[in-house]
């Protein structure tokens, strides 16, 4: 009890008797509030919806929970997770993202095992665990795709971790994506031989 009273007394004397404390405290508290102005700096086109690692919560909850410690990026054996800079705005700073064209996710679920705050929910690298992943959905641009132009390709189908379920082949190996099975790992986008890619993965997780 005496410790508590001593603490209160100290707090009171610090807060009330010292205008210097209050002044510097206010200056210190106001300064970080200018940091979001960094967003006003001129930047290129901004993609607000990133592809997140597997097991991520809904976008807003994910950004709330993620502290940007980088453990997911650190254990990723595929090096497909990178940490955002300012390209996603200040709210996405230091959060993990996956750039599917550069490297898709191999669904090893190592990142979901290590997340300290639960921003990535724990998943196992089993067929059930993989089926529970919902990072996004692949979409084919039929006017760009080789197979839809009659030149048999089928590279995306061969890259797909769930062939026959998430993606089936038509005539000339034309890819058909089935949204209910597609987990959005981005391996098809990484593998696409057309430049720019004819198949893209879009994040379709709910916002909140």
């Amino acid at each position, binding site marked *: 009890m005496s410790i508590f009273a001593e603490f209160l007394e100290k707090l009171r004397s610090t807060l009330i008797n010292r205008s210097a404390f209050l002044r*510097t405290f206010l200056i*210190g*508290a106001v300064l970080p509030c200018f*940091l979001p102005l960094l967003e006003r700096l001129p930047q290129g086109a901004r993609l607000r919806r990133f592809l997140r690692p597997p097991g991520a919560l809904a976008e807003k909850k994910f950004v709330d929970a993620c502290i940007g*410690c*980088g453990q997911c990026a650190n254990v990723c054996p595929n090096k497909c997770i990178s940490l955002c*800079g300012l390209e996603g705005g*200040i709210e*996405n700073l230091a959060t993990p993202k996956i750039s599917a064209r550069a490297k898709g996710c191999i669904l090893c679920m190592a990142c979901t*095992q290590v997340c300290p705050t639960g921003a990535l929910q724990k998943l196992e690298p089993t067929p059930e665990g993989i089926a529970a992943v919902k990072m996004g959905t692949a979409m084919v641009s039929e006017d760009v795709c080789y197979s839809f132009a009659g030149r048999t390709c089928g590279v995306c189908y061969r890259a797909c971790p769930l062939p026959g379920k998430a993606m089936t082949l038509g005539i000339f190996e034309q890819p058909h994506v089935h949204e209910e099975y597609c987990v959005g790992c981005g391996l098809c986008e990484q593998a696409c031989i057309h430049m720019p890619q004819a198949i893209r993965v879009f994040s379709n997780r709910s916002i909140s």
Partner: protein
Amino acid sequence: MHPYASSDPGILKQEHLVNAALQIRSGRLLVFLSILSRLTVVVLLCALALLTEYLNLKIAYNHPRLVELSSGKAMRMFYEAADTVFSKFGDPMQLAQTNGGMTWSIRLMGVPFTDPIAALSVLAKDHRMKLGFALGLTAPLALALLFGRAFCAYICPASLLFYFISRIRRWLSRWFYFPELSIHRGFSWGVLAGGIGVAVWTGHGIWTLILPYFAVGQTVFHGIAMGTLSIALGSILLFACLDFFFGRQFTCRYVCPTGRLLGFVGQKSLFSIRRNAQECLTSCNSCAEVCPMKVSPKLDQSVDCSVCGECLVICPTQCLSIGIRKVVSIPSHVASPIPERIHGSPPQSL
């Protein structure tokens, strides 16, 4: 006993009893240890970032020759070295994945360590904490309760940078004048409150820019694992400029919210700086002058002491030591009066 020191047999007896406890008197050892351990932390951060590279090589090539063909001889040597180390303890892949993170939240051999600011920030924004995350607080808080701000002198990689900057300042001060400014320490409480406010407003990423050691961790990770420059480099430069132009370890003293929080938690720490009042000289104030945290051992202050050992090196009578905090209070007539200060600010309390 020093000839100019006051003497009182009763006090001497008390002092003798208290001094029997564990003590460190060698300041040089502490300074050396603090630099060594902070260097180790920097090396550890680089190694953790390189671990990503190792995991990638392991899963993609898994053969020294292929590794060498894909990324060169240096990487092959690193790959083989890491492989030998990890193979001794078990499956290299799994073992390597038990380590990760940076100064903000880190796992070493599966043991999590959490920054108190991270926990505060998560509590303020998300209101939930995982058990492992909360348990990770144990080690930092225990360190603070035992040694006060020892984190700042022994672990924080940013303070190593500031230490070197202070040495550069000292060398350059032969030709240039460098000011030694003091502001009220409420500033860092303000940064803490403002940082949590902005974290709730936008996101936790804001700490990348505010906390010096988080900025260092981000920069190292971005540079080594991802090969890009991090935005946090900008804030490191800002903090370095603050230190260079405004005062020795200015950021640690007046800006860093973690240091303030640890100093607050550890103000009654078990171990702290101790002064032998009988041997302390009345006219000398060198310990307060040299202290990077602007603590005055002369006045038996120990709040914010980071046990860096610089005052032990400078003390002419060796009356200072690091040991168990004094429980006996010394009568005021024995404690030396405060000498007139030639420069620097008047001593401040928290």
